């Protein structure tokens, strides 16, 4: 028995679902065709299969795009009969965030990932020439497995994947609402987008990050192709280009994630060693290592096997990170682990990991014997040797991060009950700081060595000036910023060295060959990033309680000290100035732009002697009181060239819950009469028949009137209130209006219907003590250096990529 439902639009879903199936089948055909092409002996067979493969892959990409368009149409037109639109969007969502709905859910983010794979695959197919068939076989195969996550069909009783086009009434079978054929009339709005994702970084960060994820597939596919065909001759250039592309894009994506965390989350930082962050950082580290060892191979024929293993490991880790973040295995350990999508996805991804491992290692052990290694030993004072060491250091970093992040996995696999480290900052920094120190030294010195053979005396001579400048700058920074911990000193000196050495290298050696600047610029940027991280975190201090020197978690602290540091919140009553550090703070009131609640905090700074006002600015940290997620607080930042003053709300007053004992004052007024309140007055302008108060939603048969009252403070007119009085179905109703700045509530008591048009107005202004906000302010010194370093590192990687692309042609 299937009742017919009214108002449903099933066509877009049916088209979408058909395209999902088409994309799945075409990726299957492409995989098979490309495998046959790569295996075929005869040239004509190779060509025929290759053509079929390419056409199938194009069809696959086109249908994935079609799926995206269908789903976007559903979200854009608010078709809440679809579960995806209902659970991830709402009618009030601004257009720019409709795209973000895609990456909130599992199906949408897999779809985005498939699109990037498809796009990169098409580029490879057209450009790879002899590599097309073996490389695209892997790409198509990956699309086949990944695409299965969105088909949502039953095979032998097991559900594979979940469709983005599932209907709400199918997902929630049994809910009584669906027994009514017109159920859609009751579903006025969707669940809405997670407010944390309603941020501009969240529009741009996930697509970039997923493109970075997708980019790791291509070096992996080339690795498989190279092993398969036992051919590494003209394999290096495309692999290196795609590797560099991945380094640039994935690196940028990770940094944007940090920027998002800094600007919209209130944990007070850009990096928390959260498992979700770690899961995207680790593949980047191994990819960077792989690109470096590939460079070694290109120049010296050493370390090809290491390179292959790095690229295999990178792609494996990408899928592993998806497993960690999407299946809910992280559970309690992550602040922003995505919802667990259940056992089916878990099995799917574990299966994927096993397939990658089996195929890669089978090919590797079968065919890597064919890889000729140079017989002679690597010399110690060569560029390749130290680059190799650097890559291994990156690997150590990756192993340590993965080991700790995977604790929930170890628990599950071995039945352990380990808890993740109580203080992750301290735990990770303890090791990663020394890794960063070693890396900083290596990226400074290594390029002064030459491939194959170096005259060591010359290198030492070149270093003298660099070391002198490094010492001077380090001393200046160290004294100026009071850097007095041994680890911090090490990081600072080596980061400065990395920066200076790379500038020195550019000046001394490569000044004329701009295209070769990529590596030095990227390394220079990395050095700046390290310096920025050190300066912004070492002297990061909470000024809402005047506590100085919150350290990196480098030295063990007693709990007593930690408790002290936790007393970092300041209470501000409305319009009552409070001293905080050098500033005088005043909470001026709040305003609502749904769904955000902005708190207006005024900072002023006075000269201590003359009492002259030096500066004055207002910050608007926002909070959302979300019925499902509680208080969501987003900071606001005052940016100086050398620091950020980071301010966010930690506790707000739910005004509706405060017992309101204050009585209204009643006053009868005629037009242009004045009503006085504590810090200003209202002038009654008259009765309106056309109600314009947006909170009033007219219904048929209403009789509605409103009164316009202009509010003035000592400086002149500031605002208007328009309380509404209406009769609906023989009932009198009053709609109160509020002036949030003054905490003033105004309503109409009675319309007197006399000759003078008098009205009884009631108003009240609860005392400021009833209105407060608790906030926290943190200073991040020199955080701009980190931002600039990030940009420079990305630009350097892109420059290096362009150089390789030029060579390819």
């Amino acid at each position, binding site marked *: 028995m299937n009742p017919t439902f009214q108002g449903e639009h099933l066509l877009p879903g049916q088209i979408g679902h058909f395209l999902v199936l088409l994309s799945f089948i075409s990726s299957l055909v492409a995989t098979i065709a490309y495998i046959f092409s790569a295996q075929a002996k005869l040239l004509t067979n190779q060509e025929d299969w290759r053509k079929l493969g390419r056409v199938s892959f194009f069809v696959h990409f086109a249908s994935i795009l079609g799926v995206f368009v269908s789903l976007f149409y559903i979200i854009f037109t608010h078709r809440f009969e679809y579960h995806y639109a209902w659970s991830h969007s709402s009618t009030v969502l601004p257009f720019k965030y409709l795209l973000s709905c895609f990456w909130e859910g599992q199906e949408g983010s897999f779809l985005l990932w498939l699109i990037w794979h498809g796009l990169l695959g098409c580029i490879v197919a057209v450009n790879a020439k002899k590599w097309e068939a073996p490389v695209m076989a892997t790409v198509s195969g990956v699309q086949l497995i990944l695409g299965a996550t969105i088909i949502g069909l039953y095979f032998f009783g097991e559900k594979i994947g979940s469709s983005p086009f599932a209907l*709400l009434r199918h997902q*929630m079978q049994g*809910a*009584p*609402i669906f027994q009514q054929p017109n159920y859609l009339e*009751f*579903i*006025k709005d969707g*669940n809405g987008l*997670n407010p944390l994702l309603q941020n501009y970084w969240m529009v741009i960060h996930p697509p970039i990050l997923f493109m970075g994820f997708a980019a790791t597939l291509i070096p992996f596919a080339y690795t498989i192709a190279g092993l398969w065909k036992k051919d590494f001759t003209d394999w290096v250039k495309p692999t290196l280009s795609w590797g560099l592309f991945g380094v640039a894009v994935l690196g940028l994506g990770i940094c944007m994630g940090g920027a998002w965390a800094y600007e919209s989350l209130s944990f007070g930082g850009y990096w928390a060693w959260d498992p979700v962050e770690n899961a995207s950082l680790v593949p980047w580290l191994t990819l960077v290592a792989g690109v470096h060892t590939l460079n070694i191979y290109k120049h010296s024929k050493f370390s090809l096997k290491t390179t292959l293993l790095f690229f295999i490991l990178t792609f494996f880790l990408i899928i592993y990170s998806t497993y960690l973040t999407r299946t809910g295995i992280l559970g*309690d350990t992550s*602040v922003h682990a995505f*919802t667990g999508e259940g056992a089916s996805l878990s099995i799917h991804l574990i299966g994927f990991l096993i397939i990658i491992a089996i195929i890669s290692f089978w090919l590797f052990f079968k065919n890597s014997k064919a890889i000729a290694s140079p017989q002679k*030993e*690597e010399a*110690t004072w060569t560029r390749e040797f130290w680059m*190799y*060491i650097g890559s*291994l250091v990156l*690997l*150590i970093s990756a*192993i*340590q991060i993965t*080991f*700790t992040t995977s*604790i929930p996995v170890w628990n599950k696999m071995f039945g352990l*009950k*380990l*808890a*993740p*480290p*109580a*203080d992750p900052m*301290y*735990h990770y920094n*303890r*090791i990663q700081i020394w890794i960063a120190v070693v890396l900083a030294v290596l990226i400074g010195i290594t390029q002064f060595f030459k491939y194959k053979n170096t005259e060591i005396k010359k290198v030492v001579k070149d270093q003298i000036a660099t070391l002198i400048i490094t010492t001077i700058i380090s001393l200046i920074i160290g004294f100026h910023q009071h850097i007095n911990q041994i680890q911090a000193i090490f990081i600072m000196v080596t980061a400065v060295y990395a920066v200076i050495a790379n500038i020195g290298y550019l000046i001394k050696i490569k000044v004329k060959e701009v295209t070769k600047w990529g590596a030095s610029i990227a390394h220079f940027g990395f050095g700046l990033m390290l310096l920025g991280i050190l300066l912004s975190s070492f002297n990061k201090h909470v000024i809402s309680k005047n506590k100085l020197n919150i350290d990196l978690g480098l030295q063990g602290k*007693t*709990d*007593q000290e*930690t*408790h*002290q540091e*936790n*007393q*970092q*919140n*300041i*209470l501000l009553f409305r319009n009552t100035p409070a001293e905080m550090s050098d500033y005088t703070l005043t909470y001026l009131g709040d305003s609502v732009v749904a769904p955000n609640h902005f708190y207006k905090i005024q900072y002023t700074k006075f000269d201590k002697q003359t009492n002259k006002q030096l500066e004055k600015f207002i910050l608007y940290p926002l909070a959302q*009181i979300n019925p*499902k*997620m*509680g*208080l969501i607080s987003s900071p606001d930042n005052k940016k100086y060239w050398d620091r950020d003053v980071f301010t966010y709300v*930690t*506790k707000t*007053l739910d005004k509706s819950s405060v017992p309101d004992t204050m009585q209204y004052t009643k006053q009868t007024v005629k037009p242009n009469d004045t009503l006085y309140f504590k810090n200003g007055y209202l002038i009654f302008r008259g009765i309106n028949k056309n109600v314009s108060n947006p909170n009033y939603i007219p219904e048929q048969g209403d009789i509605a009137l409103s009164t316009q009252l202009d509010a003035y403070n000592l400086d002149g007119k500031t605002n208007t209130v328009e309380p509404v009085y209406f009769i609906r179905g023989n009932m009198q109703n009053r709609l109160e209006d509020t002036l949030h700045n003054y905490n003033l509530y105004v309503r109409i008591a009675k319309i007197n219907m006399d000759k003078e048009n008098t009205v009884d107005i009631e108003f009240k202004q609860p005392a400021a*003590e009833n209105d*407060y906000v*608790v906030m926290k302010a943190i200073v991040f010194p020199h955080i701009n250096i980190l931002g600039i370093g990030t940009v420079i590192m990305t630009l350097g990687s892109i420059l290096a990529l362009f150089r390789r692309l030029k060579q390819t042609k």
Partner: protein
Amino acid sequence: MKKSSVIALVLIAVCLSVILSLVGDFSQDTTFATAMDKPNKSFQIVGTLDTLQPMEYDAIKDPNHFAFFVKDKEGMTKRVVFKGTKPMDFERSESVTLTGSYVGDAFQCTKILTKCPSKYKNDKEFVASK
């Protein structure tokens, strides 16, 4: 011995020592009893909120003082003090994960992680009530 073998051995040694040096950071989930045995040492305790006993938080008196009672896995209920603001919707949390140490007569906690029912999960009741 070849240089590459030396490097490989050094690599394995470094990784092992790094991981071994970190093992101390991994705490087992503990109970109040363990934390009371070793005062001032940091532990992680998972428990449920004891809603029968009052919660203390008054932003006007001290915005950095929040006290409540938690029942651990063995059923022991202890007072917990958090020097910070009260997390929103704390009453509704299904379980709380506390990090901190036992000092004096209360568990002084430095970090609270709450697990709320259906954070952004859609449940049928929610649809039905619309």
